[in-house]
């Protein structure tokens, strides 16, 4: 015990260590930018080792929690006014310890990977500072003892994502995307803030279990109607909806691909999107007694899962495809939370964190390889139509990508199988309709993931095909032309041909495998992607025994042999069999279409053109939002400004004018020129009419 206690006392170091790293390097960049920028390796090693230390500490905490150490909480008074106090601090329980391990391991590996990926970028040091800050915010979030502190770090995570997505701020795409991410998340935060205030008003606390307990008591004794409580909970849920990219607040996630790939891996696996699921888990005491809210969460999750998968089918950009797949998988997690499968949702969060981080890092490795051939143009380097046959050139990347693909498709014994199967099983018990959608989505998932794998790694390499390159550029110009009007097209088309002629000389003809700093994290992540599912098998569910809702008691685990004997095999085989079955159907279709080319995808697309267009255009959500919210907000703002300048200021100026004129006029009035007085009144009325007429 004497050895364990200090670990807990210093647990605050976990988020603080990366923060210190970010602060020191950041200060260096501002004060001695030239020197700091040249100290590339030392800065990177410094930050990576601090994160490594945080990781070691997290593992120690995790093992201590596994061995049954009680929950440890420490708080201090943060702000106060009179007898009103707000506290901050940290709490280490099972959930926090697990999240700490997930976040630190993924962040550590992503940082190692970054060294290779960003090697030639002038913003290398700055990128490390941001990464470190991002990890720090997320780590602070998971050890928060109350909702208020979660909100604090929640916002910080959002801010870091803004910085990171907009890392290449010279690109228009990145600049728009980071803004979109921040503002969409703020819409969610709006709900979270309101919900938080409302719950505080009703329960007088920011502690999760106290809030849950008191809210339930209030609803039971009738001092608060269930409807009002539901509204509060739904407001809270808006927060996770935005952070975890659930429909209708998912729009920022695919655009976030504008950031450098290591960020995509971090955002999509361990940090930002996980925060939403984590918050739902923390707020479970509040949600679980409100059936309407739980149903809403389940439906939102289920719909998002389906929608994401349906869009992923038609994406040609490798990162965008993975982004929609993330959205879809997050939908599964939300679905699990909604049907009350708390453990299953978090289990999927964990397995997904590892295999999705790996998949993203693989895509980064592919892009890195492609850039040698097609140059530093995201349009060309990320498009799968220019890839193909990369397995020959990048064996490690392709092997790990295949592992990730199998994991996400739910093929046993890979990690994704166990978690996804548990979610689907629990869903079936609650609602067969939700299960059916989830099941169908599993098939689509298998199809689009293998489509991605085959178009990237199998077949012939198409990277040097000028025709496709030109066609891609033309497509982009068409898209731009549509938004800029026909006149804007011509000059760009001229540059297109000129670039195509002299751009290719110094490029290699074939891509190469990425350096060891990039492949090593891939291999390291492949291990949990294969194996980690085994801690949560339905026979002996260690995971569930460790992570379960605070209100639930879990029976002691049986030893393996007994567990096998007592296990209900028929039900498991039926459920697992059906989900593996639809996965295999999806894979077979993908093989037929993209590996053996027996079916022509273009022909199918033509047959169901409206559906194809719907998927390709992401259900037109961006267009709708642009027309309604962006334009609407701009219009409203413009009108307000006009009103401010014309009416509010106009009246003031008019008042001044009138006083001036009447002052002059009084002289005449005293001389008895009443007509002049009337003229002034007339003038004033005319002025008023004019002012209101203009506006």
């Amino acid at each position: 015990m004497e050895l364990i206690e200090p670990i807990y006392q210093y647990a605050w170091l976990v988020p603080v260590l990366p923060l210190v790293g970010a602060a020191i390097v950041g200060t260096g960049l501002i004060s001695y930018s030239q020197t700091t920028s040249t100290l590339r390796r030392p800065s990177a090693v410094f930050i990576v080792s601090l994160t490594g230390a945080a990781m070691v500490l997290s593992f120690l905490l995790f093992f201590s929690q596994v061995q049954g150490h009680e929950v440890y909480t420490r708080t201090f008074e943060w702000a106060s006014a009179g007898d009103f106090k707000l506290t901050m601090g940290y709490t280490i329980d099972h959930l926090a310890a697990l999240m700490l391990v997930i976040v630190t391991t993924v962040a550590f590996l992503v940082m190692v990977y970054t060294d290779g990926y960003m090697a030639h970028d002038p913003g290398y040091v700055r990128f490390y500072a941001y990464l470190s800050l991002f990890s720090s915010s997320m780590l602070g979030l998971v050890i928060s003892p109350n909702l208020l502190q979660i909100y604090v770090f929640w916002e910080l995570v959002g801010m870091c994502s803004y910085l990171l997505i907009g890392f290449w701020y010279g690109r228009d795409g990145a600049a728009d995307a980071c803004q979109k991410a921040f503002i969409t998340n703020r819409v969610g935060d709006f709900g979270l803030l309101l919900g938080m205030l409302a719950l505080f008003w009703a329960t007088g606390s920011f502690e999760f279990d106290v809030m849950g307990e008191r809210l339930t008591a209030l609803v039971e004794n009738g001092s608060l109607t269930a409807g009002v409580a539901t509204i509060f909970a739904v407001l809270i849920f808006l927060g996770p909806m935005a952070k975890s990219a659930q429909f209708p607040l998912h729009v920022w996630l695919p655009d976030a691909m504008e950031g450098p790939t290591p960020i995509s891996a971090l955002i999509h696996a361990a940090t930002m999107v996980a925060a939403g699921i984590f918050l739902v888990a923390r707020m479970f005491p509040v949600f679980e007694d409100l059936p309407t809210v739980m149903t809403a969460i389940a439906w939102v999750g289920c719909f998002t899962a389906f929608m994401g998968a349906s869009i992923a089918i038609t994406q040609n950009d490798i990162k965008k495809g993975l982004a929609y797949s993330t959205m879809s998988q997050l939908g599964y997690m939300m679905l699990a939370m909604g049907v009350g499968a708390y453990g299953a949702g978090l289990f999927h969060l964990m397995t997904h964190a590892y295999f999705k981080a790996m998949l993203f890092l693989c895509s980064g490795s592919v892009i890195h390889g492609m850039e040698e051939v097609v140059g530093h143009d995201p349009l060309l380097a990320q498009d799968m139509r220019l890839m193909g046959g990369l397995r020959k050139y990048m064996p490690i990347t392709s092997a790990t990508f295949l592992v990730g693909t199998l994991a996400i498709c739910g093929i046993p014994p890979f990690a994704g199988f166990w978690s996804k199967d548990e979610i689907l099983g629990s869903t079936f018990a609650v609602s067969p309709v939700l299960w059916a959608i989830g099941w169908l989505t599993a098939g689509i998932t298998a199809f689009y993931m293998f489509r991605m794998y085959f178009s990237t790694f199998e077949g012939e390499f198409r990277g040097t095909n000028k025709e496709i390159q030109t066609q891609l550029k033309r497509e982009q110009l068409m898209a731009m032309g549509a938004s800029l009007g026909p006149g804007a097209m011509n000059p760009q088309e001229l540059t297109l041909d000129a670039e195509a002629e002299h751009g290719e000389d110094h490029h290699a003809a074939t891509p190469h495998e990425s350096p060891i700093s990039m492949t090593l994290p891939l291999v390291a992540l492949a291990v949990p992607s294969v194996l980690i599912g085994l801690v949560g098998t339905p026979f002996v569910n260690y995971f569930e025994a460790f992570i379960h809702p605070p209100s639930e008691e879990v029976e002691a685990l049986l030893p393996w042999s007994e567990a096998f004997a007592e296990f209900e095999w028929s039900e498991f085989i039926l459920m697992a069999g059906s989900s593996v079955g639809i996965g295999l159907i999806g894979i077979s279709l993908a093989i037929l279409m993209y590996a053996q080319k027996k079916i022509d995808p273009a022909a199918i697309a033509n047959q169901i053109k409206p559906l194809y267009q719907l998927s390709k255009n992401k259900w037109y959500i961006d267009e709708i939002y642009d027309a309604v919210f962006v334009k609407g907000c701009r219009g409203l703002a413009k009108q307000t400004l006009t009103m401010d300048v014309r009416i509010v200021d106009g009246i003031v100026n008019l008042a001044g004018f009138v006083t001036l004129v009447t002052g002059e006029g009084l002289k005449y009035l005293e001389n008895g020129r009443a007509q002049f007085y009337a003229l002034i009144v007339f003038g004033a009325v005319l002025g008023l009419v004019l002012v209101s007429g203009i506006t």
Partner: protein
Amino acid sequence: MELAQFPWLTVTIFLPITAALFIPFIPDKDGKTLRWYALIVGLIDFVLLVAAFYLGYDFNDSGLQLVESYTWVPQLDLKWSVGADGLSMPLILLTGFISTLAILASWPVTLKPRLFYFLILAMYSGQLGVFAVQDMLLFFFMWELELIPVYLLLSIWGGKKRLYAATKFILYTAGGSLFILVAALAMAFYGDVVSFDMSTLAAKDYTVKFQLFMYAAFLVAYAVKLPIFPLHTWLPDAHGEATAPVHMLLAGILLKMGGYAIIRMNLGMLPDAHAVFAPILVIFGIINIIYAALTSFAQRNLKRKIAYSSISHMGFVIIGIASFTNLGLSGAVLQMVSHGLIGASLFFLVGATYDRTHTLVLNEMGGVGKKMPKIFAMFTTCSMASLALPGMSGFVAELMVFVGFATSDAYSFTFKLIAVMLMAVGVILTPIYLLTMLREIFYGPENQELIEHEALIDAEPREVFIIACLLIPIIGFGLYPKMLTQIYDTTTISLTDNLRSRAFASTEELQPLAFLPHLQAPELPITAD
């Protein structure tokens, strides 16, 4: 002489203006001696203020401290009386801090430096005086005294429309301050005792009707200063034309005078009227937040954009004042200090950007982030502070106002619900206009025309130093707000207690303000053990 008896406040108030009188006699050829002189005076004064705070100020005392009182006109009970309680102290320190930094920010000023530094120092004195004096008439004098330097600073060193802006400013504020004079006289001569002393005035027992008139008069004057919609239109003009250092003072300190005076007089002296006016204040606060955020979004001029954002942020001060809770009032004071720091930093950065791009129109900028990464970084940080990012002071202040207002027992549930909802809309709107602004200045491909014609050099150490000075308290208060709140906590508590005991004295139970169905916070049958 013992330290406790040293006339700290009188000395600090008169030091800058006295020092300013010597400016004409300072030999100065290249303008460099003057600015150092002004800076050193400012610094000494700030150090004296900190010393006074450190040696003579006690956190646990809710009343006036560092009091000095010398009879001036005994017939009218007119005294030179200064003092500081929890409400004045943070603002006095803020004044010293921002004014000193503003002097450092005026380094590039070359036009008529003597007059410029003279006025800046005069303003320093006037502003300190407004927060420190404890006599109504003196308060009025100080209030007026500080207007003249601002008028001149605007009309001589301003932009193209400087005369229009300066005239508008003087008409508005001078017009407003007439109301102060009238109300002050009326209150002084009310009842048996003739006195201008603020604590005597606060202790008088006015009829409700009288209070309502006084309240309205004060409100008009302070609504101009704060500003509250629809009396805000002088502000975008004045801010749009001012140079960066004047800008810092306007946003950093001048706006706070309005909030300070509302708390000191409207809330402190006229509690019954406050109970009547509070819902109206809340409504105006909400209008401020949303209306100004929308106008800011549509603005194409950088300075005016930030000016409107100031108006928007002041909305939270108004709502905090009207919340009838400790937390809300505490949040309002914190928001004033916090906006003083953040507003000053943003306006300074706008000035720094203008010095390089020589344009304030957003359409003519774009992509300058590559050439000026430090300014880009500082601008982003300060914008984040302004949009209330946690870890910075703005967040704590807004959060306290939110929680304070939401838990207030003075309003009906429905009213609170709608009000909080609308306030929270500001949470969405603020990042929209601030991030769009950053996007248009720094992000995207470089604007070739700008690069060819202007020398876009990055921030110099002086500029980094100023921003660092402002960011340290912003982040410090954000991380550990108690550092600041403990200074004024006892004062706000006694203010709220006084307000509540007097405003709600007539009825046993709290009557919900705003005539809407009342729903109180549900009581729990279970007691937490």
